[in-house]
């Protein structure tokens, strides 16, 4: 805290440079990415100046009894849902941090959750080989999607929320009709467990990643594979998602690297490094604020925030005492939620003070 006050003092004397200058100082000393070029602060390039990131811990939420695997904000940003290996989904107020309720029903741990776009339903993927759809109002599971022959690892809604895509350890990607709960399509997508699957913003494409190191893009209408993205070293892919405009995909791999790929040209356009990711499937996400950043958890118990364009680490959030397995950004405000594994079991909400 003292160090922080000191920085603020310095800032007052040179207001022009205050914005980017203090951000890297919050990074640990050993982090070489912390050096932001001073030339960026010149008035001539002020339009390119990187706005400040000064995320501070707002709330610490405790309640889960086993590793927390997924965090998702509701579409209106009022509620945070968390899923864990303790087989339950918990809901928290994103505003006050208050505990709201728990959904119980799965017989095994939950790996992933997803909100429908109207915020009335939440889907959960579990090791009991099912996906359940829960109605928030009725506080019960309204559909159980049965079909996967092994653990279900990831789940996502289509933009119209009439379809659901799930992937799991049976190496398939499945597309479900929500209204009837029937499986519409089984895609034998990969030759290793599927770690992530998600729709493009217009609902015509699905991207999937797997432990075989491949990322594939599928045409939802025909079920055909349209593209395969693979890196030279073929590291295990732990997560993939489309950018908001669906022109790129953000791929996290277990060589401690996050890459942004242009899938049309099959080219990696940005690389983000600095964090540690060799064992777990840690997702990365974009901030939804005006200035775009990339946020990811890390196996060194920290959360890393990169600038989308410059690829520099803007801030490292410390506080968790175990691997940060889940991170999520708020849909409208500059808030990050993070959660950690066994030794910690807390959910933390971080708010950008300068945002």
């Amino acid at each position: 805290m003292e160090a922080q006050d000191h920085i603020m003092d310095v800032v007052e004397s040179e207001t022009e440079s205050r914005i980017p200058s203090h951000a890297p100082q919050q990074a640990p000393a050993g982090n070489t990415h912390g050096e932001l070029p001073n030339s960026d602060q010149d008035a001539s390039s002020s339009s390119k100046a990187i706005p400040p990131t000064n995320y501070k811990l707002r709330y610490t939420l405790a309640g889960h009894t086993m590793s927390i695997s997924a965090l998702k904000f509701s579409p209106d940003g009022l509620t945070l849902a968390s899923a864990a290996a303790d087989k339950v989904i918990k809901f928290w107020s994103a505003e006050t941090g208050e505990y709201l309720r728990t959904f119980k029903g799965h017989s095994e741990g939950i790996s992933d959750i997803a909100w429908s776009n109207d915020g009335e339903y939440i889907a959960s993927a579990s090791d009991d080989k099912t996906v359940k759809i829960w109605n928030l109002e009725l506080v019960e599971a309204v559909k159980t999607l049965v079909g996967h022959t092994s653990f279900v690892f990831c789940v996502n809604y289509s933009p119209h929320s009439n379809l659901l895509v799930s992937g799991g350890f049976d190496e398939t990607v499945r597309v479900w009709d929500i209204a009837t709960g029937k499986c519409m399509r089984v895609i034998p997508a990969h030759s290793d467990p599927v770690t992530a699957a998600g729709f493009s913003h217009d609902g015509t494409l699905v991207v999937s990643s797997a432990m075989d190191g491949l990322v594939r893009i599928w045409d939802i209408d025909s079920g055909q594979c349209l593209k395969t993205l693979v890196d030279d070293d073929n590291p295990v892919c732990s997560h993939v998602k489309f950018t908001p405009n669906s022109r790129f995909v953000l791929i996290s791999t277990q060589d401690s690297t996050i890459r942004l790929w242009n899938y049309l040209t099959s080219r990696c356009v940005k690389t983000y490094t600095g964090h540690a990711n060799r064992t777990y499937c840690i997702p990365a996400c974009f901030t939804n604020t005006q200035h775009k950043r990339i946020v990811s958890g890390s196996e060194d118990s920290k959360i890393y925030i990169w600038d989308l364009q410059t690829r520099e680490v803007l801030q490292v959030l410390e506080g968790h005492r175990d691997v940060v397995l889940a991170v999520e950004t708020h849909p409208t405000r500059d808030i990050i939620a993070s959660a950690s594994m066994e030794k910690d079991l807390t959910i933390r909400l971080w708010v950008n003070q300068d945002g």
Partner: protein
Amino acid sequence: MNRSLLSKDNFALPTDVKTSLIDHASYAKFDNSGRYIAAGRLDGTASIWDLETRSIVRNLDAHVKAVTSMDWSRNSRYVLTSSKDWNVIIWDLCSTCEPIQRHTTIRFDAPVVSASFHPRNSNIVLVLLNTGDAYVVDLRKEHRSRVELVDEMEDGHTDKSRSAMTVARFDTSGKHIFIGTSMGCVLVFNSRTKTLVGRHKIAGAGIMRGFDFAKGGRRLVTNSADRTLRQFTLPIYPPPSSQSVLETELEPQYRFSDHVNRTAWHAMSYSPDGDFLAGGVADTATHKIYIYDITRDGQLITTLDGGRELLIYLHWHPSLPIIASTTNVGNILIWHCRIPERWGAFAGGFEEVDENVEYQEREDEFDIEDEADVYTRKMKAEEQEVDIDGDAEVDEEKSILTSASIVVASDARDEDTVWADEEPDDDSDTGGCRLKIIIVDEDYL
């Protein structure tokens, strides 16, 4: 989005039946987004199909006699059904009632042949009765009215005994109403003033049976009792203030007819860009669709054969080479262009080529480069800014979808447009009103 990854030349014309929706439909029409199909039945019920899940998402149940036509508002919030039970019903698909309740009922004193929304405002409805009369019903508070469209002859008296109205359609901008008559005439009314601005005698056509407009708005195709489709390029009509009526004999640009069997046409529909015309034949043995290429002198490009169930209606998807054709037993066939599986897509960095290519190796292709150099070059390349939010391509796609409304937007200050935009309906494209997903109870099935 997926179009950027699929090769372009595959997007030509429908070739195969992709799926057939089992319904008892006699009428099936796409909405403006192409996501839904509205299907009407002879028993008076109607359904909304979601093409993504290929299942019925709403049942519209109110008519007691056959549904004769259906129409979508521009952003698919409202659907109207017209029926032989003398009613036109407007449904609000965003209503949360289950089962869905009627939004508005418009009652007439004769069976309704067809009804359609004004393209800009779903509170204005054009209705045609089987007595041969057409009405414009305005449901807006300020304009509330029901006006009959009358062809006043020069000498002042109306001449209804001579010709009945058999077709009534708004053009794509909604500025004009096109009426086909039993005497083979096309009458053009101004939608706002309901006055006659054009009258065309189509030589040899006989009773008019149907109209379709290409999205650009200048092309009209007519179906008539002489079993011929005629395509016209429409003239510019005088504004109603000039009191003049454009009286010309339109000469068709192309005529399409079956020269061998002389079979009649049941329905026709333009492709999204207006370059192709699909005609559904009233054949008594097979389900046949002929597709003509307008850009190449109207020559026959392809014939689609849909088996033994006879065709009764067809409609082209608003943006893709997909056709929905309804059969006489009530199934809806969805025709699409089959894209062959590209197995090369399963391999990373692999590109299929159509023909063998002699590979030219670059001079330095296999030189061993300094890793540091490679790294610097990569970092340099990564400095280029990326745009993950905005998207030119999406805007482009959007413009294809809404090209009809863009044509209209160009004359936004036009008197007729202003009139139609007064008291707009709540059917905005940005408003969060979407068709809610109703989860079907398993016991219910």
